[in-house]
């Protein structure tokens, strides 16, 4: 049963009482919250996600609430809890749904060492996964959003889960977090795009979340074979250019962009070595999304 089959009222009530249990890629997540924005965020962006049965195992119990009664009324705040543990300081109340996304990223990155977790977007076409690592501002999320709006499958816009067991990439399709000007870029690029509430003045600037394609969510936890490792860089007015990157350099760059490379030690190194062995590695500079998409779609044939 999918979330969109529930009435808005039921979503609100379930969030307030026992919590809403969702299947997100291979993870099961329970979220409790009495904050209206959070219910609206889930209803508009998580409609295609499957609900999880009461008898099932939940990976992450999360909740978003006001830190105190006072903070509900006076400069209201919200705080994220992972089953009673508070990994972050509270944020302003209107960032509640963004905090859910960031909080869940933290849960996955800190508790799932069965994967090497790279800070990278990953999308797939014709059975080939393209991995786009990138520091904030490199344009990886924008590129990722444009690709999945052009019928690529979204595995993740934020974290690439590379299994240590089989070398495949496992999906966590989630709303794509777009910042500042990227929001309008994607709205213009794909007018049917559905966004959640756009929030100003977060630590990352203005943030809006794009609903992931229903089809990508429908793939559930099916993994994909990595094929290309591409380090993107958006540069205003630049020509589209793709340059080969040596495998050694690619490995080190990806290690720098990993959340748990240091935790995995030798296993981490081996899995990255296997990854660059089976991928073509490039650096990519762009300013025109249409050209970028045409290029990658061609490469995936």
């Amino acid at each position, binding site marked *: 049963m999918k979330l969109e089959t529930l009435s808005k009222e039921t979503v609100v009530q379930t969030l307030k009482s026992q919590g809403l249990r969702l299947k997100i890629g291979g993870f*099961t997540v329970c979220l409790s919250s009495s904050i209206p924005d959070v219910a609206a965020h889930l209803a508009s962006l998580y409609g295609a996600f499957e609900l999880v049965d*009461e*008898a*099932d*195992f*939940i*990976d992450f*119990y999360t909740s978003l609430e006001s830190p105190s009664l006072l903070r509900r009324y006076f400069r209201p705040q919200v705080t994220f809890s992972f*089953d*009673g*543990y508070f990994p972050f300081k509270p944020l302003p109340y209107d960032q509640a749904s963004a905090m859910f996304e960031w909080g869940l990223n933290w849960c996955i990155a800190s*508790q*799932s*060492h*069965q994967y090497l977790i790279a800070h990278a977007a990953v999308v797939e076409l014709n059975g080939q996964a393209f991995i786009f690592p990138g520091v904030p501002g490199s344009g990886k999320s924008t590129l990722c959003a444009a690709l999945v709006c052009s019928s690529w499958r979204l595995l993740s816009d934020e974290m690439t889960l590379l299994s240590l067991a089989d070398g495949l990439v496992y999906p966590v399709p989630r709303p794509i977090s777009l910042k500042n000007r990227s929001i309008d870029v994607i709205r213009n690029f794909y007018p049917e795009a559905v966004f959640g509430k756009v929030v100003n003045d977060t630590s990352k600037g203005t943030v809006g979340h794009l609903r992931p394609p229903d089809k990508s969510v429908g793939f559930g936890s099916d993994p994909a074979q990595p094929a290309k490792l591409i380090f993107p860089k958006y540069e205003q007015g630049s020509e589209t250019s793709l340059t080969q990157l040596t495998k050694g350099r690619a490995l080190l760059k990806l290690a720098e962009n990993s959340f748990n490379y*240091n*935790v*995995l*030690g030798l*296993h981490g190194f081996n899995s990255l070595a296997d990854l660059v062995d089976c991928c073509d590695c490039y650096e990519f500079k762009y300013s025109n999304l249409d050209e970028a998409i045409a290029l990658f779609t061609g490469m995936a044939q």
Partner: protein
Amino acid sequence: MKPLLCTVFINPNAALDLNLQQWDMLIRQARAANVLARLGFLLQDAGLWGKIPVKPLLHLESALVYFGRFYSSLQREIGYVHDALSVANVPLVLLKGSAYIMAVNAAAKGRTFSDVDILVPEDKLLEVEWALINAGWITSTLDPYDQKYYRQWMHEIPPLRHLDRQTSIDVHHNILPKTTEFCPDAALLLANCVKIDGQDSWVLATEDRVLHSATHLFHEGEFGQGFRDLSDLDLLLREFSGEGDFWEKLLQRAEALKQQVPLFYALRYTRKILQTPVPERILDAAGRQAGKKINTPLMDALFLRALMPDHASCNDRWTGLARWLLYVRSHWLRMPVHLMVSHLLRKSLRRVLGKEPH
């Protein structure tokens, strides 16, 4: 009702009968108590690894991977501390978690922590501090009051932090603050230290290791890790109980080091909560040794709540109050009333004036 985590710690085979919802609860309780990796080791040692459902197994494996990383970093860090101390010609005596891990005690399993704790003779403190500073550690507080608080009253100097690695080291010269009535003679602890096989570092004698663990837990004011610490005691006691006259020596040593009360609590609550095989006569003797001042029904009401895993499913309506009362008690035990009042007043005043983080 006994938390599932206690049931499985007492008898790992109980995990065979769990349904997926119970596994869900077990993993939650273990994570909240910071014993997820330890639970993994217990289930592995019991030969149950192949019988764990895949979802909970992933969480246990992940915790073990993290522990593996912690373990190798710790070995390296202790090497650095050793080298720094050898410049000052002071032997490296490890305490608590570092000691369990380097001495390969059962309590090392899945034990993670953030500080390396060491014990040095009080008259060598200055030399040790300089040696560590020369090797890249600096004090974590420059505040004159905090410095004075530690140096005048506590059993350790303010924690040192390494500039590059951001690792932390607590340099102790005793196991309890100088201001407590039960502060032992540190020379006795140092005199009985044992050298770790094949290494140039030392740990407290087996009995003293147990007593230090006990005194740490039962003088403590924060119980977020209470269950984990109780499990340390359980594992130490089970491991050492095989040594011929361990129990008798433990009782004698508690007397010599003035740790009769914490030892009594340690034996009573490991037995009650984790069914540690403490012989009846030893428990009775520990009770007699601890004296008549203990209000056992009251302490049961407090400790049997506070020592549960720190997870919502293990709390009852009195847990919060019990933990708060024990927090107050810890300050009470730490220093005489006049010192405590002036210390707490000073702290709250500075907080109000914004000179101290909340």
